[in-house]
């Protein structure tokens, strides 16, 4: 990966020392989690993992820009947002291993997780379907005159889906306070962005829905933080939603810019980080990840009868017959 010297100095005022360090430490953690889960998936220990390597700045920066009372709708790659919001690492490990202590009770293949206590919502891995849900939450909050917004993540491939179009169209018409964050890494699995759209990038699509469209360097955590905060404030003032295109191009599979390293260099430039802190953090993160994985790997699987729970609020006769 290529590295840039630092985040854009013009944005530096957006980021306090304390938040800068917190964001960086979280990015280091999720990078370590990601690399470990990719390895576990390759070894066949877990069935799948939707990696976000190279996209940490966009995911964590956007989550950090929202307020606690706001709702977050991930797509498949935003486990880092759930962890930022307070989902314990071990709870995520239980999800990935599908244990009896998985909040989703082992029903979904790994990713994305949800965390109800912090309004990180359960979404399916189907592409784009969560976009109208995020609009609906924001719309409902605005109807109730409550200052709550929603953030919805998706990759650029999702802009080809029905639900992207209808969701953002509803957002425009209703002025729902929603921030739609499109991670454009140039590739949807194997399909390049040029085969998703003929438009000049993805942010311009906002125009047709009466939304504001913004393009931001998705490897610059400060820029993402600033853009999402700005969109959040604009939505709260009744001006409606924003489609943010966070650009972080890959060369096929390899990110061109490492946002984690870039953030570290930014902190070092501000005198907030050094090699000793890095070594301590690496040690702590490694221990935390291994502890969480070990606990999840040793936890029992859900009981057979749990398949039948939660289909309905109460077990109907036909499911009782199948269960018993």
């Amino acid at each position, binding site marked *: 990966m290529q590295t840039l010297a630092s985040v854009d100095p013009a944005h530096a005022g957006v980021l306090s020392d304390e938040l800068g360090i917190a964001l960086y430490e979280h990015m280091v953690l999720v990078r370590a989690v990601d690399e470990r889960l990719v390895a576990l998936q390759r070894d066949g220990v877990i069935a799948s993992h939707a990696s976000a390597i190279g996209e940490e700045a966009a995911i964590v920066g956007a989550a950090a820009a929202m307020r606690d009372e706001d709702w977050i709708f991930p797509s498949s790659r935003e486990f880092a947002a759930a962890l930022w919001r307070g989902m314990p690492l071990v709870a995520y490990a239980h999800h990935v291993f599908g244990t009896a202590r998985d909040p989703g009770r082992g029903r979904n293949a790994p990713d994305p997780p949800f965390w109800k206590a912090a309004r990180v919502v359960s979404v399916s891995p189907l592409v784009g379907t969560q976009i*109208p849900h995020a609009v609906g939450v924001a719309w409902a909050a605005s109807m109730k005159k409550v200052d709550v917004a929603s953030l919805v993540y998706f990759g650029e491939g999702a802009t080809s889906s029905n*639900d992207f179009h209808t969701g953002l169209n509803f957002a425009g018409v209703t002025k729902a306070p929603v921030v739609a964050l499109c991670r454009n890494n140039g590739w949807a699995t194997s399909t390049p962005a040029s085969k998703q759209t003929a438009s000049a990038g993805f942010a311009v699509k906002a125009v047709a829905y009466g939304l504001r469209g913004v393009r931001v360097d998705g490897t610059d955590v400060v820029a993402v933080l600033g853009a999402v905060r700005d969109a959040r404030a604009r939505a709260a003032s009744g001006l409606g939603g924003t489609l943010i295109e966070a650009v972080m191009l890959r060369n096929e599979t390899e990110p061109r810019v490492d946002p984690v390293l870039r953030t570290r260099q930014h902190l070092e430039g501000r005198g907030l980080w050094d090699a000793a802190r890095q070594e301590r953090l690496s040690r702590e993160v490694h221990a935390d990840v291994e502890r969480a994985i070990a606990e999840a790997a040793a936890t029992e699987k859900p009981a057979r009868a749990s398949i039948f729970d939660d*289909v309905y609020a109460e077990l109907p006769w036909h499911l009782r017959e199948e269960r018993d």
Partner: protein
Amino acid sequence: MTQMNMVQAINDALRHEMRRDDRVVVLGEDVGKVGGVFRVTAGLWDEFGDDRVIDTPLSEGGIVGTAIGMALYGLLPVPEIQFSDFIYPAYDQIVSELAKLRWRSGGEYPAKMVLRTPVGGGIRGGLYHSQSPESLFIHVAGLKVVCPSNPHDAKGLLLASIRDPDPVLFFEPKRIYRASKGEVPEGDYTVPLGKAAVVRAGTDVTVLAWGAMLYEAIAAADEAKKQGVDCEIVDLRTLWPVDIETIVASVKKTGRVVVVHEAPKTCGFGAELIALVNEKAFLHLEAPPARVCGFDTPFPYTLEMDYLPLAHRILPAVVATARY
């Protein structure tokens, strides 16, 4: 008690529940000032205003998708899909999202709504305004499916559906929207979900029907009576979870069963009903179970009365089953 037709009874139920529970919102295409194409929501916009009776963009997927978000936030949406023939663009949202949210989130993110939609033929609506897609939803775990046959049940079932914790597909048989009239209690009452009604007791053959076809079954039973065949007619009211106890008790008494529905025969709900009867009352059967259904063709405009399983088609099936 007041004389009402189905449209008035459903309108009365919506108005009653919107006054009682400010979480309830109605949304859909043209449901506001004009009151919907069948005028079921007439007058609600005048009383409850733009934030609770909402004209939406013309997108069923967007209606259901944003309603899911509203439900997650804590509202209780009652979307109208203008014709059940138009529900397919929302099928992904209903099947993949609405029906599965409670289960996939371990019970933490249920999304509750009642989807109202006119169903069935007999109004010269042609291919795209006459379909009966109920079995497509009965097949999906997590949904409840209701179809009233008269104004009293329509109000009581709709109130029960709104208060039920699970998502409900509420099919309104449009052929009898105005043709079916009857006494409807003022104020609050419910008709419980999952309870069929034996609308006519008899000894020779059980006829299972619902919605508009109930009246065809009754007309056929009147004719059969003249030929010495005494029909017991069961109005299912809730299609899923179906009232298996009432069905089995009736079939054990008569030893014979005929199912009537408008939807195509193959994999229609009649197939499941007869399979259940075979599983639970096989040794009581004295004749092969019979189905009188729509044909396995698209729904025709000019020849709709030939397509529908009207009394003249039900009668020979009932008599043949009784005399087998």
